[in-house]
């Protein structure tokens, strides 16, 4: 196991301890719960709090999006495992500034059940909550039932835009509305060339040869659309742009934001080669790129691979996108 760690069963707790030590000016544990982290200035009075959460091993997803202009709190599970209902409740209580809490997380069964249980408990304390689930991976279900999709790297956009909306002191309903409409307009497709290993497990999650790639891979190693021989960047850009544009019905003259994301081990050098080709594909279709994000935005430990997310823009999205936002992990 080529990981920097001490014991598998303290992997998450020691990592979180390091994060709060390194970024004590920006983050703090909530209510003494070491699986629950909120902005250092939480609760922000009168602001809708956005609380997220999910399994560990995807940094900056989820904890890395806690900060001004993004989320207010996070509940952290074990590696690739949903957080406990307790941790969600603690984060929500500590983040709630009196205007209610939006639970914004990726569409997975374990997370859904725990966030729903937390919402029931908070309801007993008269803390209003709303739930929005990012479901952006086009490899996992067709557009018609997009809400069944698994949530992957495209969650960046609902974080960013709902975060900006909340920062502008909108109501819980308005923030939920933005989050929902962003989720309906984000599509992501990824691919990977290697697996990753859970701390404490003897083998990688799956096997893949050096000449193959998995198209449509999920961020926990869930297999995707197909396994194929390794494609060139230009071929990948062609496939991704084709599928993403079709999914969102993006056409000539439309404006989009693009997120090119490394799954962990793939270098930034390569991401930009992919963006270079992807940009050419959009240009050919006469689609205007308003904003581009390239880097590590949602990872799967040390997996080799990348994903591209597309957000179809409207005027309000553009404005919210341009608001500044900053956490110890991500600044835009």
């Amino acid at each position, binding site marked *: 196991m080529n990981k920097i760690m001490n014991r598998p069963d303290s992997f998450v707790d020691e990592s979180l301890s390091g994060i709060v030590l390194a970024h004590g000016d920006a983050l703090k544990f909530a209510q003494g719960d070491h699986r629950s982290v909120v902005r250092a200035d939480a609760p922000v009075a009168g602001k809708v709090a956005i609380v997220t959460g999910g399994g560990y091993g995807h940094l900056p997803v989820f904890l890395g999006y806690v900060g001004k202009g993004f989320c207010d709190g996070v509940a952290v599970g*074990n590696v690739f*495992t949903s957080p*406990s*209902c307790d941790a969600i409740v603690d984060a929500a209580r500590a983040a709630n500034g009196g205007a209610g809490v939006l639970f914004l997380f990726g569409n*997975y069964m*374990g997370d859904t059940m725990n966030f729903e249980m937390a919402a029931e408990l908070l309801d007993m304390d008269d803390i209003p909550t709303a739930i929005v689930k990012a479901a952006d991976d086009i490899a996992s279900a067709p557009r018609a039932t997009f809400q069944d999709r698994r949530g992957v790297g495209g969650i960046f956009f609902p974080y960013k835009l709902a975060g900006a909306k909340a920062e502008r002191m909108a109501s819980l309903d308005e923030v939920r509305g933005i989050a929902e409409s962003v989720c309906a307009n984000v599509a992501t497709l990824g691919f990977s060339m290697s697996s990753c290993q859970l701390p404490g*497990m003897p083998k990688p999650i799956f096997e893949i040869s050096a000449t193959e790639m998995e198209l449509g891979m999920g961020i*926990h190693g*869930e297999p995707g659309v197909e396994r194929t021989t390794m494609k060139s960047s230009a071929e990948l850009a062609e496939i991704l742009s084709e599928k993403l544009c079709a999914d969102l019905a993006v056409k000539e003259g439309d404006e989009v934001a693009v997120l090119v994301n490394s799954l962990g081990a793939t270098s930034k050098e390569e991401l930009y080669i992919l963006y270079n080709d992807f940009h050419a594909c959009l240009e050919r279709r006469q689609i205007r790129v308003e904003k581009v994000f390239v880097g590590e935005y949602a990872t799967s430990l040390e997996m080799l691979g990348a994903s591209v997310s597309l957000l179809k823009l409207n005027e309000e999205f553009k404005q919210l996108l341009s608001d500044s936002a900053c956490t110890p992990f991500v600044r835009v």
Partner: protein
Amino acid sequence: MYQIDDVKGAINRVAQAIREHRDYLGELDGKSGDGDLGLSMENAFDAVQSTADEYAGSSIAELLTKAAMNCNRAAPSTMGTLMSAGILSVAKAAKGKDAFSDEDVVGLPRAFAEAIMARGKAKLGDKTILDALLPLADTLEAEFAKNRPLKEAFAAAAQTAKTAAEATAGMRAAIGRAKWLGERAAEYPDGGAILCAVIAETLAQ
């Protein structure tokens, strides 16, 4: 009658069996999901076992309620959360009792399955743990109704669970991570169903 010490003994045996099957469960889960089923069940039953070890009282219901809470805290994955709901249903069945009768025990798998269905909204045929657990409950109830001794009825039920779990190979998942894969994960049996078979076999011994 089954006393609190029998319940604790059963918990210990199940926890041990899960530790032994940890890597296999993880591997199966990796075929269609994220590979964490083995690890998270280990965490879940470590927590349940510690709860049992530390519990000095005499109420089965209280012990199992604590165990269910600690199970969810230690392993809030899909299966951990469903397992915790199931354990809570067993706790409810124990309410106001010092011990479980044979009749009580026969009713537990059904209660467990119903708790899982209430929380997870899956049904028979979706390729989940239910595809082993519901047949198990059916056999157990049917065999016991034929006046077979509980031990024998349970052994038959465990056998049914095993066969049913293996028969999930070839099914297409209708829920959970495996659903996203459609045909691609069909050839492997469901990890949760196999887990059910492992637990049933352990309890039958």
